[in-house]
């Protein structure tokens, strides 16, 4: 059962990913991205990470994608121009991808997959568990992330101000 769900969700994620790069209309790419996000959410659920599942659906599939849709809607239904390609580019790309896939396949034959560590699934993945982990074990990376976001915000303000005198 779990395997079947995984296979379906994984196939949807890959198909969505291909859709993102393959479609020419931005709106279709955005909608494909929604498919990827939702499929990933299902994968998180399979890994018993309920909280991440909820966040993935609300924040990514919800909020972030709505922003994307807004931008696309504001810019109008523009179409990506298919110019600037070499004549043999599709064939070459296919060839390289095939070679890379074969290499990857050969290489991955000897992989030793680890067994997952046994955790208490009653608390694993819950909000409380994540909070405890964040503020004890991952305290330092967590604080670093806040600093990172602060710097990104400063940069966004500086770069997007209309004139430097506004600062």
């Amino acid at each position, binding site marked *: 059962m779990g395997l079947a769900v995984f296979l379906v969700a994984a196939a949807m994620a890959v198909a969505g990913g291909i859709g993102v790069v393959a479609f020419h209309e931005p709106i279709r790419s955005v909608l494909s991205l929604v498919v990827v996000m939702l499929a990933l959410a299902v994968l998180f659920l399979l890994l018993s990470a309920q909280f991440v599942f909820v966040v993935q659906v609300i924040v990514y599939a919800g909020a972030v994608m709505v922003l994307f849709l807004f931008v696309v809607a504001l810019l109008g239904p523009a179409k990506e121009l298919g110019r600037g390609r070499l004549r043999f580019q599709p064939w070459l790309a296919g060839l390289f991808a095939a070679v890379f896939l074969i290499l990857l396949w050969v*290489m*991955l*034959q000897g992989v*030793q997959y680890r067994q997952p560590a046994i955790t208490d699934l*009653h608390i694993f993945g*819950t909000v409380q568990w994540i909070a405890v982990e964040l503020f004890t074990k991952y305290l*330092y990376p967590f604080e*670093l992330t806040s600093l990172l976001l602060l*710097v990104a915000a400063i940069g966004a303000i500086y*770069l997007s101000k209309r004139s430097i005198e506004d600062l």
Partner: protein
Amino acid sequence: MMPLAATAVDLTYSWSQALADLSQIAPIATLTLFLLFAIVVDLALPKSRRGDAVAMVAAVGYVLSLATAFYRWNYGDNGPAYQGYATGDKFSLFFEMLFAVLGILTLAVSHSYLKRRRFVAGEFHVLILAAVIGMMVLASATSLVTAFLGLELLSISLYIVCGYARGETKSQESAAKYLLVGGFASAFVLYGMALVYGGTGTTLIPDIAKTLQASSSSNPLILLGIVLMGVGFAFKISAAPFHMWTPDVYQGAPIPVTAFMSVGTKAAGFAMVIRIFAGGLPHLAPEWQVLLAFVAATSMIVGNLMAIVQSSLKRLLAYSGVAQAGYVLIGVIAGGQADPAVRAAGLASVLFYLFVYMFMNFGAFAVVTALAGPEGDRDRLSDLEGLYRRSPLMAILMTVFMLSLAGFPPFVGFFGKLFLFTAGVSAGYTWLVVVAVVMSVVSVYYYVRVLIPVWSSSVRTDKLEWSVSSTMAIVLSGALSLVLGLYPTTVLIASTLGVPISFFGP
């Protein structure tokens, strides 16, 4: 759903533990405090006084951070912190001191530059502070998670300052290019890290080493991870064949930024390479040594040959930086050998070279910074014409930097290369050292070519304005490039001490 009482987890993180952890990362914490203070100052003061005040706050922050690191180097009991996610060992302290000094130099040079070009100063200093913090985090990271966060903190700050000249297309282009290529490289690093995590089950670097020691057979997941991380690191230290972004980004960015990142990202990138490859994956050394040897050889050849044809000083120094990354990689490769003596010599030579490279390369960029006018950077070779008339001191110092970069004795660049190449030979990579020596000879051509306009007679007699702070920074860099060459022992001892003990064990 379980009742809440049953899900309660015991919280064992006490105040004393928190303080002990904080003191291990004291230089980073100090600088972060001053970063936040600088933001408040920038907001609170009237516009006319902001720039100077923020610069002052940043200066105090750098000096205090340097002092803290120095104190901890001598008296602190250095060890892991935050459940093993960071460390305050001598390796990280060495780099923290290096980055604090770099911050001071950058501040000194950029202060007058920003005034001359009429840029807003506040955000600039704040972003450079953030980048320095990112570099320190990277150097003190003992987990893949922290290392990645440090890398991103440093990169994001730099993407923004690269586009700091908002009216200039070149600066914008530089920022956009750096953002795209940097994001690409980060993705490589992250993918590699994820695979290593998947193969070992931990992100803590010492634990990765232990796990790999226990399982003797090599796991393809980890090998793939090494390749992907190696590609990402090569992007970050701008080593060939992943260097294409370097000249364009260096040329477009404002010169103090170029000077800062040419030294800073390189040192931080190498700190990360040493931590992860030499510290976390010593059992797979033959695999990553082959990868790095290829990258080193290409970097030296491509960097030096391409530098010959450049007419822009920024581009020339960018290609020279690519070549220098190749030289330093020789030391890293030697740092993967099983023999502890060879290993220590290799890693110590890397630390030594990165430290002295800061002064000679930053100094060269700092001289070019002073040439910049209100309308833009002047970095053509011809802009240096008659420098010996316009400013004899700067002409002499530029000569020192160039000869040091080329590796002439008695300047410090010679000793840096000497240590790197000796380590390379004793590690058995003689062919690589032969390539390095041959390419060093080639490099003399373009370094000396920079000096021709400096000492040529020219009709240009316009005086250059030298601000006190940037003159002091340049003189300090020049003096150290010479003095450290005459007495290399102090830094060499520090570099040797900076190689953590844990790297020697199996």
